C-alpha cells in the first residue's frame, strides 16, 4: 500500500508539476491509521482522495 501511495503522489506531482503539501500526507496517514477500516477500505478511501484531488487540480488549471 505504501509503495502504491508513494507512486501515486509522485505521478500526480510529475503530471501536474506541483508539490503536494503536508496536508495530503497527513490525511492519507489518518486513513491508514483508521482502527476499523480493512486494507481494501483504506485503499478505496485513498483512491477516492486522489481522484478528487486530480479533479480539483484539473478544475484549477482550466
Amino acid at each position, binding site marked *: 500500500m505504501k509503495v502504491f501511495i508513494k507512486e501515486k503522489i509522485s505521478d500526480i506531482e510529475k503530471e501536474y508539476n506541483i508539490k*503536494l*503539501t*503536508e*496536508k*495530503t500526507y*497527513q*490525511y492519507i496517514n*489518518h*486513513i491508514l491509521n*483508521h482502527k476499523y477500516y480493512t486494507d481494501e477500505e483504506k485503499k478505496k*478511501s485513498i483512491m477516492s*482522495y486522489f481522484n*478528487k*484531488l486530480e*479533479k*480539483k487540480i484539473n478544475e*484549477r488549471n482550466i
Partner: protein
Amino acid sequence: MNGIFNCMKKFNQKLLYVEDHDAIRNSMSRLMGNVLFENPIDTAENGLEGLELFKENRYNLIITDIAMPKMNGVEMSKKIREINKDIPIIFLTGFNEEYINDIEFINNSYLLTKPLNLELLVEKIKGISHI
C-alpha cells in the same frame, strides 16, 4: 491532562474556533482557554457564523471543523482568504470529508485530525508562530 501544559507559556493569539457540535465546541474551547491561550476564545457553530465573527473582530488564528451546516469550514476559509490572505487556519478532519481536497490549495492552512490532540495542536501553533 492539563498538568503537562502547566509550565507552558500560554499563546497570545486571539483564536476563533468553529465547530458545530455543541459538546465538542464547549469542552474544547474551555480546555484550550484554560491551558493554551491567554485571550478569551471566540466560538462559532458554523461557517456562516464564523465568517460574520471574522468580519467583526480581529483574530490571528482560526481552528475550524470542516463539515458543518449552513457553511462548511472550507467555504468559510475561502471567503476569509478574500479578506485576509495570511491568517493561519487549522482544519480539523475526520474521515471521508467531502471538501478535504480543497484544503490542499488554501495557503497557510494546516490539518489536524480528530479527536483534537492538544499536544499536537501546541506543536502546530509553535510551528506556525516559529516559536
